[in-house]
């Protein structure tokens, strides 16, 4: 008989049948989440921008590899819906191509950093004592580094391909995650069910992987969401400082940098506003989602 059935049978014997079907963290969270209009806007926009960037180029086909100087800074027209930039690249097509890089790097950096930070924080908190103290001092040191400055130095040193940039950004985001997850772990490690694993002879790794991390999953998911927004902004900063992705590849920040030269010379709005607005809307969507998820998983705030 499966464990759950044994427990259910025992409960029935004792007359302790739950009055209603117990609801999991996720079904409760889903309910709170879907009540949040801003979060739904966020989800809707993310779906739109993913389709725009990844499906769009197959419908609105443009050449983003070869320059075409006959189209130098051409204004928006029927042929080029958002005009062209100084190298004759179609701006709308570039927005899609740049968006692919921005979103891919943002998502990957967020997942890598939160993954590493979660394991580090859970191990540190669960181990406790000197191990915890040493591991956390390292995190303190990491958090004291001026992240933008060191990210800039690393981008200068290493040839910034998208993969390299993912790891450079992730390198600085996991410290905060590690500290948060450690805090959660400290609260969870003394719970009865975690202690029961130890009493039953379960290995520490099992406690961490099967009990602590799943119970901290709310915090972890929220962190991923905020991390995506932060990573997209960091990538755009690198692009703006010309320390980011190398041409002919591009990202939204590099597009902004390219348009900046022409801002004082005339009304070339299509070089500046589309990538800027794309960054803002994408990041605000992730922030809305993260905020709603935090409310959804924060059971203390729920009267149910």
């Amino acid at each position, binding site marked *: 008989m499966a464990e759950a059935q044994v427990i259910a049978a025992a409960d029935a014997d004792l007359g302790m049948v739950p009055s209603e079907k117990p609801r999991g963290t996720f079904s409760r969270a889903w309910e709170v989440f879907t009540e949040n209009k801003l979060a739904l806007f966020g989800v809707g926009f993310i779906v739109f921008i993913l389709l725009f960037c990844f499906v769009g180029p197959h419908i609105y086909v443009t050449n983003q590899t070869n320059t075409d100087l006959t189209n130098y800074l051409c204004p928006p027209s029927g042929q080029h819906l958002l005009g062209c930039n100084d190298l004759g690249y179609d701006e709308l097509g570039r927005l899609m191509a740049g968006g692919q890089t921005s979103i891919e790097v943002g998502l990957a950096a967020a997942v890598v950093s939160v993954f590493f930070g979660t394991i580090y924080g859970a191990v540190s908190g669960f181990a406790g004592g000197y191990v915890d103290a040493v591991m956390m001092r390292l995190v303190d040191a990491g958090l004291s580094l001026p992240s933008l400055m060191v990210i800039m130095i690393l981008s*200068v040193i290493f040839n910034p391909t998208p993969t390299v940039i993912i790891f450079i950004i992730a390198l600085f985001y996991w410290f905060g995650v590690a500290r948060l997850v450690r805090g959660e772990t400290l609260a969870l490690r003394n719970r009865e069910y975690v202690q029961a694993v130890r009493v039953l002879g379960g290995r520490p790794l099992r406690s961490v992987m099967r009990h602590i991390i799943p119970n901290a999953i709310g915090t972890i998911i929220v962190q991923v969401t905020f991390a995506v927004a932060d990573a997209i902004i960091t990538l755009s900063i690198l692009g*703006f400082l010309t320390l980011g992705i190398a041409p002919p590849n591009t990202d939204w920040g590099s597009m902004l940098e390219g348009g900046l030269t022409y801002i004082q010379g005339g009304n070339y709005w299509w070089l500046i506003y589309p990538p800027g607005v794309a960054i803002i809307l994408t990041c605000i969507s992730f922030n809305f989602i993260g905020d709603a998820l935090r409310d959804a998983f924060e059971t203390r705030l729920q009267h149910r």
Partner: protein
Amino acid sequence: MIGFLIRRIGQAILVMILVTAATLGLVHLFPGGPVRALLGPKATATQIAFYNHQYGFDRPFYVQYLKWVNQLLHGNLGVSDKLNLPVTTLIGQDLPKTATLAVLGLFFALLFGITLGVYQAVHRNSVADYVLTGLSFLGYSTPVFFLGIVLVDWFAVDSHVFPPFGPQNTSSVWAILGDPRALVLPVFTYAFTFYAIWSRYMRSSVLDNLVQDYVRTARAKGASETRVVWGHVFRNSLVTIVTLLGLSLPAVVGGAILIEDVFNYPGMGLAFYQAALNNDFNVLLGLTLLAVTATVIGNLLADIGYGLLDPRVRY
């Protein structure tokens, strides 16, 4: 408290040692070593060996580190090879400029962040609360350089209300302050980024305090709502802001790289950016170190201030 202070300062020193070692280690990551990066691809092996010897890069890392720390403690951060200027001189020139901008920016961020944060908490879920919340979200979803560009486009290029760059006569703090029109856009950009975060913190801090027992007691004793909010809740909520102020010290010192770049304002941020483009590693090391020191001291001050202001906090 004394025991806590000693422990906390000990921790800070440990963090400084780790971080300085990591920072010095960074320059060795340059492909072909830092000297190759500085002298360029045409430098001969002899020249590189000469420089390596001069900088002590041919010694073991721990010797380099100890020598560097020793120089540091004597106030010597090395020389900028591109600017031909001691790094300490560079910092002496640029720190006042960056600090002026930062102090102005933080002042306005504080002023609006605190007052509007309190207002939002007291009028929770009102239209104004939603609008200001939206503004905050907009604030921290906008890359600061894009905000700067938009402001330049609207107020300098299109309408010529303000100049498109920060004050260009930066010979003294008074000269900078003597050009208030040029300060408006950079200070606004600076303030807005911090305002977006601080008003959120202030709002939730006030909300937390409004449900405390002492508020009920004050109301029961017949205190007016103004007195409850500004005499009791506001003062207790400020504790959060003290922490945030401590954490913003690195921004004052490190310089808002992006704002200084957008508005071409020659502070430490711009100096750092140019050093990054030029592989000028002594400047990079010196300015990073300064920012790290500011972070560690800022954290320390925030912790101490927290303990002093909140009598419930006992270390």
